């Protein structure tokens, strides 16, 4: 299959990847089964989305009997970093500090969440200096 390089996922693809990350690997039916019934997605459409994900190198597949089992090639964390880098570049002039500042200044952020952010930053600083 011809591979195409594509950095980011569309909304539907992300939905599929989230399900695959949750189950580590799965067939079209496995992923479809995890989606809410209201989604009303046809089997062929789901198969096409997974095929596109394979062409974009986000998943690989192996044949098991009559069906394909899809395995994510990119970890969720790695995609999160990639997505944030893209957001930072496109919306925050490539300055991650602005992104974090916007996040921290969000009024909806609870004390607990702020504490967690501080802990993450402290740990990172400690690791870097140590």
């Amino acid at each position, binding site marked *: 299959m011809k591979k195409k390089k594509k950095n980011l996922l*569309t*909304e539907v693809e992300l939905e599929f990847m989230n399900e695959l990350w949750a189950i580590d690997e799965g067939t079209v039916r496995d992923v479809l089964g995890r989606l809410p019934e209201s989604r009303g997605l046809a089997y062929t*459409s789901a198969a096409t989305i997974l095929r596109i994900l394979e062409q974009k190198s986000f998943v690989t597949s192996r044949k098991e009997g009559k069906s394909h089992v899809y395995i994510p090639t990119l970890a969720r964390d790695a995609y999160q970093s990639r997505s944030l880098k893209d957001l930072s570049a496109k919306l925050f002039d490539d300055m991650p500090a602005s992104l974090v500042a916007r996040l921290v200044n969000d009024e909806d952020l609870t004390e607990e969440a702020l504490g967690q952010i501080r802990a993450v930053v402290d740990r990172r600083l400690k690791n870097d200096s140590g």
Partner: protein
Amino acid sequence: MIPGELLLDAFLNANILLSVAYLIWRCVRGLMARTGMEQAYGSQLKILNSVFLLIIFSPLIIHAYLSLKNVGFTINVNFNLSDMVVSHYLNGGFEMKASDLEGLIRMRDTFMLNVVNGDGWIAQIVIAVFSVGFILGVTRLFYSIKCLRGIVKKSYKWRSFGRIRIQLSDRTLVPFSTRGLRCYYVVLPSHMLAQSHELRVSIAHELQHIRQGDLEWEIFLEALKPLFFLNPFFHAWKRQIEDLREFNCDSKVLNRGVIDVKTYCETLLSVCQNTLRRDRAFVIAVPKVTLVTANRSLARQGKLGLLEHRILSALDLRPIKRQKFMFVMTTLPLAVVLLITTICVQRSGDWSQDRLMLSTVVNLERLDEINRLSTFGRIRN
């Protein structure tokens, strides 16, 4: 005539014909609306396309006419507009200074000669504007094709049957179709896979465009755009074709009865919302035929846009009978009028009796003017 002059002459004729044809077409369309044929979109589109072909091939028609005239096969009636005006003038139809009339009649010849030889500042400005516009137009066309190729190339193959390839793309939010040398491409936004109704409507709509031959017409008109960019009637004509092909496509898809009006209109509205968010590369990519096009400026002005017209038309769709008959009955008189106009606007090929007479009158006027002047430039009473 030298080839440059010949080409310019054909080009000017095509521009004049296009303007005349557009004005006649507006009257015809108004008449059709009054006689309950407003929704005969298929016939209207065919009429416009046939007339456009007639205009483009008018130089060949003229060539055939002149060849027949030279061997004496045509009726002995002079259709040339300038000859008719001269004849009317000589018969006392209107008053004017003979030299002014001659200047007016020779205006086109003078202009053409000046443009071909690059004489005078007006001709030089015309040449410069046309050259810049043409080069920009051709560059834009190639860049647009490159953008479109990029979108199609980076899309994912979904289905294919015959020469039709259905592709899925993350780079477009609006379904569209285009064609290569051999294959037709229907490109759908990949997010549509999750919306089966929209997917069905989009595929039906785009396949109908392919069936109607809209892609070929779009390519043809886009290719001619750099040549006719100065003619506002060309742009108006293209807009008419674009609107009519959408109306025709909507009515054909809905008349088939597989998709209901509500789903169809909802898809149009949903895709239109996405159109307003589309990226620049998609906007400039041509030649393509999209499911919907949204006009922000019209929306801002509060005017009825094409989409609103399309939805109203879809909701009020009535079967139109005898469309073929109407097409023939409208195209024939239109073609005859245009053929006569084509012959009328030609440059007079030779010196007719009337033209010789006009030239004599001009010379007599000049002699009289000289006689009225004394040797020292004073006017004799």
